[in-house]
């Protein structure tokens, strides 16, 4: 149980730090896309700010459950297993929900693509943590 908790917490922290890093890199390299965050479809910063910072830990719970349930079918080294986790998460979870987001909310395709990459990289990092700590 302790091992599971440490793996979850580590994955959450790694995804949070990585997410912030990717976000600022996105602002630096793609400022035009980042300008879109000023769109009224995005909530103003305020009382719900904490929910944004908690999201990697929610994702870590989901990915940890998935890892424990299906880790047996992921063969190979740490990186390969992490890539598989990331791709499964991307195809099964991210792609449909981002498709739905694009269809319903006024955000550009470029923005959606950045979120897709962001999610895949986060899941890849979580995959590495899980493969290392709970192989």
């Amino acid at each position: 149980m302790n091992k599971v908790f440490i793996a979850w917490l580590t994955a959450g922290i790694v995804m949070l730090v990585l997410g912030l890093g990717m976000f600022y890199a996105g602002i630096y390299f793609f400022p035009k896309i980042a300008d879109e965050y000023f769109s009224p479809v995005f909530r103003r910063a305020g009382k719900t700010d904490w929910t944004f910072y908690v999201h990697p830990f929610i994702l870590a719970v989901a990915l940890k459950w998935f890892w424990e349930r299906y880790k047996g079918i992921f063969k190979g080294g740490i990186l390969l297993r992490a890539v598989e986790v990331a791709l499964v998460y991307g195809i099964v979870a991210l792609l449909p929900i981002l498709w739905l987001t694009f269809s319903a909310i006024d955000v550009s395709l470029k923005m959606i693509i950045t979120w897709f990459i962001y999610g895949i990289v986060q899941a890849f990092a979580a995959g590495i943590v899980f493969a290392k700590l709970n192989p």
Partner: protein
Amino acid sequence: MRVTVSIICFLFILNAAFIKKNVQNVSLAKWVVEKSSSLNIQGETNINSFQCDVTEYLRADTLVYLKNDLTKKLSFTNSSLVVDIRRFDCHNRFITDDFRSALKADENPNLKILFLTIDQFSNNCNNQVVKGIVDVQLARTVKRTEIDYTVKCLPGNRIQMNGSHVFSFSDFNLKAPRKLAGLIRTKDQITVNFQLFFRAL
């Protein structure tokens, strides 16, 4: 008793003479605000800088003032410029919408600049820098501000006055836009630049 009455009479005559002299040195005049007047606001976010413009002044406003020839001071009487915030264009639809919303344009669509005084204004105004005091009213908050104007006389009895001032959103009890849990931020300070054209009547 007689001495006291004499002193009072003397002071009264002196005062009346002083008032008369002052009145003789004060004249009333008017400026009509021309359409070509413009105003822009420059700001910065942690992504980019932005500029929001209103390039046309569509109201037919007149500024009325008393000019004291001795002190060269202009004292305005109920003279203001009113800018419709909803006409601000920040050249990016997201920033435009967000900026209007930050200024609470739906509730209070007008930015009002009430002219109070301008000091040391002379008719020989080639790039002369003068100080003025205005009340800026935005989102139901008024801020008294001293502004340095550069004044230029143009042909046809026209006057150009350029000025600039740094304000903060917080001056007007407004919050600078922040999105995505504060990861996207607009700096609190904004620079307001204006280029006003007046025609003297």
